[in-house]
């Protein structure tokens, strides 16, 4: 279980290899990478700045990681979330889960992505041709996270 909040980029291949080498019991590794897109409903996006709440971010990501490990049989997991100014194509977030079985790896990976969107204190500010604007939270994200409520 590792949580990292950082400005610098990450190498998903390296991180997956590092986790996979963790033990012979690992039968499957699932990963998700979130990227900056180049457009939204307002048009072209030049850049996006991610602000966060240092301290609380790590705490909340740690808590959802604990929750994922409570719900599924995981051998290891990793969450890396970046902050600062990013441009289209840049990587934002990496979630990796490793388990003996694929179902645990798939489901926990999706759970972690859904929950970090609604629990981790990050805010996106987009730069478009019309200036800078805070991204509004999406109802669909709340619904996606709500699926895991129990």
């Amino acid at each position: 279980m590792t949580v990292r909040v950082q400005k610098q980029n990450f190498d998903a291949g390296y991180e997956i290899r590092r986790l996979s080498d963790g033990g012979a019991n690992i039968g499957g590794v699932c990963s998700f990478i979130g990227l900056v897109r180049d457009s939204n409903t307002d048009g072209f996006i030049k850049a996006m700045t991610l602000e966060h709440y240092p301290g609380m971010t790590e705490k909340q990501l740690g808590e959802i990681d604990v929750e994922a490990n409570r719900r599924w049989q995981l051998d290891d997991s990793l969450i890396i979330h970046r902050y600062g100014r990013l441009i289209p194509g840049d990587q934002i977030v990496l979630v990796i889960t490793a388990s003996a079985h694929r179902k645990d790896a798939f489901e926990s990976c999706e759970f972690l992505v859904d929950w970090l969107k609604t629990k981790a204190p990050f805010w996106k500010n987009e730069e478009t041709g019309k200036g800078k604007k805070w991204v509004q939270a999406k109802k669909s994200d709340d619904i996606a996270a709500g699926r895991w409520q129990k």
Partner: protein
Amino acid sequence: MRILYFAHFREKVNIAEEDIGIPDGVIDVKTLIDWLINRNIGFANAFSDLEHVRVAVNQEHVELNMPLKMDDEVAFFPPMTGG
């Protein structure tokens, strides 16, 4: 207590963080917001729609009826948009 403001809250109230004593009449997050709104138009604007106010006390998400203590760290921010 320490109060932190993030994203559009910081821009509207024009401060990132401040330390204040607990004002008279403030017992929970809701009464703190009522007190902040009376400061100036920036605060009134920031808290005009409570549906879009998210609050953390000591880095945990809480509701508006969360009681406050002198040494609490209170943070105000909009719904999160990470991931």
